């Protein structure tokens, strides 16, 4: 809408899909949680099913803009918009989500990773809409962490990270790390994930992770922050997200 108000977007036909039936359900299955594209941020934030199965989503949603935006903004809207500094795209790739897409040629499912192509550009064709997203359940005994840095509460993140760990026998058995705001799209960092395996999170690993994450990202410069500063922050938010995930795992 802001783009329309700025007259940066010019359309002869605007289609309101918010009243399409069946878009605003959150359903659970043994596979995971499927969220309709029309589900509003605040509904996702408050869903008891989500809080129970994927609390990382419930927690992260508090960072999405402000109350009034969360009341009307939708999951589908955020994912289709594809801002590289937004929380929903990060969660989608962190949790290996599947995006369900519908168009004149039929239905398809796309993996979240690979859906986001460039800033504000996704794999959706012009004649397709997102209908729902499935977040698979996390493995049992997963712990998680999320950290974002913004200039002000509710602003787009300068950098953000989400981490999911599985800790067994005192070391990291499985790791996921996704970042936002530090590249043209949200990104998983498989090289870092691999580096963490078999190790315990300690001061040394933290230092290493901070350094390596900074090597991996390609942040952009803008009015709010330079690429250098974002790169610096990338290391910090990743370390803090991993730290939270580790601490949560230890507490269990």
């Amino acid at each position, binding site marked *: *809408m*802001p783009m*329309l*108000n*700025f007259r940066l977007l010019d359309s002869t036909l*605007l289609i*309101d899909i*918010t009243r399409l039936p069946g878009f605003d359900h959150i359903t659970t299955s043994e596979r995971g949680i499927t969220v309709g594209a029309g589900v509003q941020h*605040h509904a996702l934030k408050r869903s008891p099913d989500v809080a129970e199965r994927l609390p990382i989503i419930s927690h992260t949603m508090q960072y999405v*803009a*402000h*109350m*009034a*935006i969360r*009341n*009307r903004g939708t999951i589908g809207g955020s994912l289709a918009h594809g801002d590289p500094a937004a929380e929903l795209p990060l969660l989608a790739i962190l949790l290996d989500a599947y995006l369900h897409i519908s168009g004149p040629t039929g239905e398809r499912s796309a993996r979240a990773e690979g859906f986001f192509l460039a800033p504000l550009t996704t794999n959706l064709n012009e004649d397709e809409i997102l209908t729902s997203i499935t977040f698979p359940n996390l493995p049992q005994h997963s712990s998680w962490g999320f950290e974002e840095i913004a200039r*002000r*509460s*509710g602003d787009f993140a300068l950098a953000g990270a989400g981490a999911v760990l599985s800790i067994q026998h005192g070391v990291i058995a499985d790791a996921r790390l996704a970042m936002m705001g530090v590249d043209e799209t949200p990104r998983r960092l498989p090289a870092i994930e691999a580096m963490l395996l078999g190790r315990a999170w300690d001061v040394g690993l933290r230092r290493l992770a901070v350094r390596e994450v900074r090597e991996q990202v390609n942040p952009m410069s803008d009015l709010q922050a330079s690429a250098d500063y974002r790169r610096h922050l990338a290391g910090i938010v990743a370390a803090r997200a991993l730290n939270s995930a580790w601490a949560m795992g230890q507490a269990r």
Partner: protein
Amino acid sequence: MIRKRAITVSVNGSAYARDVEPRRLLTDFLREDLGLTGTHIGCEHGVCGACSILLDGVSARACLCLAVQADGREITTVEGMGEIGRLSLLQEKFRKHHALQCGFCTPGMLATAHEILTDAAPLTDNEIREALSGNLCRCTGYEHIVRAVSEALNESLGGAAAGNSSDAG
């Protein structure tokens, strides 16, 4: 020639049937078509919060809503919250605590505060500040607004909860 659409919107309990261009913003519809000028326009890109109203009971930015999207919905604007001589609880507290100066951000601030009260959860001052972070004010420095909302929230919760009052903040 842009073809107009017929919409019916309930505002402050009254139904209004109008024909509008699809591109007409809800802010302009409320202010110009219905003469409800209490909803103010500060930025038209959803940041300042001055245009916040209640849409089906929850706060929303009227500047990010097309009038046609309000078809069949219920809107509460500041005019529906209270009147001179019979202010709402929030309006009373705002007045008591001097939580407004120029008054331009106030209707939007009241809409958000309204939702805080509707959520009926006890909040610390910092949590109230967080909840109000989507409404910019240049006049008050927020201090008195937080006091007003805090007192209204405590009173509406029956004075029981929010053990952290304004001293904790």
